[in-house]
């Protein structure tokens, strides 16, 4: 019963978040894409690669990368936040869990995008597989891992 309650709440939050994202529409999606593009260009510059962002496109010496909604990590964030919010813990714990997880997923998304630039430069033949299969799978399992880490941390704090 408790497990069913958790699941019900999780699914409801997950679907409601997607509905909200759809309702916000193109301007919000574009802002998200552009923000991710600027962040990626900044990350590349940190690694010594000349890069700049124009709207949602990252231009660099190595390749140009168009950022779309699926590249921003927003879908994994929705999954994670729904999981945290549905889990029975104190509200403050859930809030810090959401913020920490979103930050971690943003960093992971940056690792993903920067690494894809490296793959495009040095192993272009494997770009599509790494982009669509390896990194998408990694993003999904890392989302679960971040969530389980939070569940354990929340449990420890409860016990203390």
């Amino acid at each position, binding site marked *: 019963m408790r497990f069913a309650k*958790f699941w019900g709440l999780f699914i409801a939050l997950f679907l409601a978040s997607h509905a909200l*994202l759809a*309702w916000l529409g193109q301007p919000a999606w574009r802002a998200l894409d552009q923000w991710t593009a600027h962040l990626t260009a900044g990350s590349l510059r940190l690694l010594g690669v000349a890069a700049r962002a124009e709207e949602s496109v990252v231009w660099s010496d190595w390749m140009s990368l168009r950022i779309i909604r699926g590249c921003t990590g927003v879908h994994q964030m929705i999954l994670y936040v729904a999981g945290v919010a549905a889990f029975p813990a104190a509200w403050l714990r859930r809030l810090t869990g959401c913020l920490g997880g979103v930050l971690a997923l943003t960093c992971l998304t940056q690792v993903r995008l920067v690494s894809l630039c490296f793959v495009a430069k040095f192993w272009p033949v494997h770009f599509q597989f790494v982009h669509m*299969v390896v990194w*998408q799978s990694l993003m999904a399992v890392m989302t679960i891992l971040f969530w389980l880490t939070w*569940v354990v941390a929340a449990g420890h704090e409860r016990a203390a």
Partner: protein
Amino acid sequence: MNVRPEVLRRRDVAKFAAALVVSLPISLAMYALCIPYYERALVAGIGSSSVDLADGEVVVSRPSSGGVVVHDRYDPHIVLLNLAIVPALILAFPVRGQERLRAVLLAVPVLLVLDVALLALVLRTRWALGDGHAPILPVAAWGVLMTSGQTTGVLVSAFVAGRILLGRSIAAGLSKQGRPCSRTL
């Protein structure tokens, strides 16, 4: 690994992370080998002339507002990636061997049915979206579908193994006994 935890512990998560390092590459390799055959079987299973495969991509045909048939191309991994994620997660979850086997046996038919349903949904939703200015439901559905391989991979894994893995953690979280920070839903 052989003792079911009262609640999920730090050690279990560390074991899970370590097991993923092995299970994910194996699962991805198997996925890469099997996916061309599975795609063909799946498209045949849908049995619609509006969905086809070309150069490893799913091609969805739809009539545009001008009456011309438009062919949209999608990478099949957006839907089928759950076949790589679910085995990797189930193999890595810190549960007993028997429970793992039960989870696999439950997950496989669920995935087969789910993938047919998802591809059919991609088709229907693309039609509903048309050339733009679609109502919110298909727009929201499209957002979910475009990452449905990842999402359903996580959800199916959690569904088949989650009760074993998390049931007691959730119960512990819901219990108020001696836990000042806990609250009931």
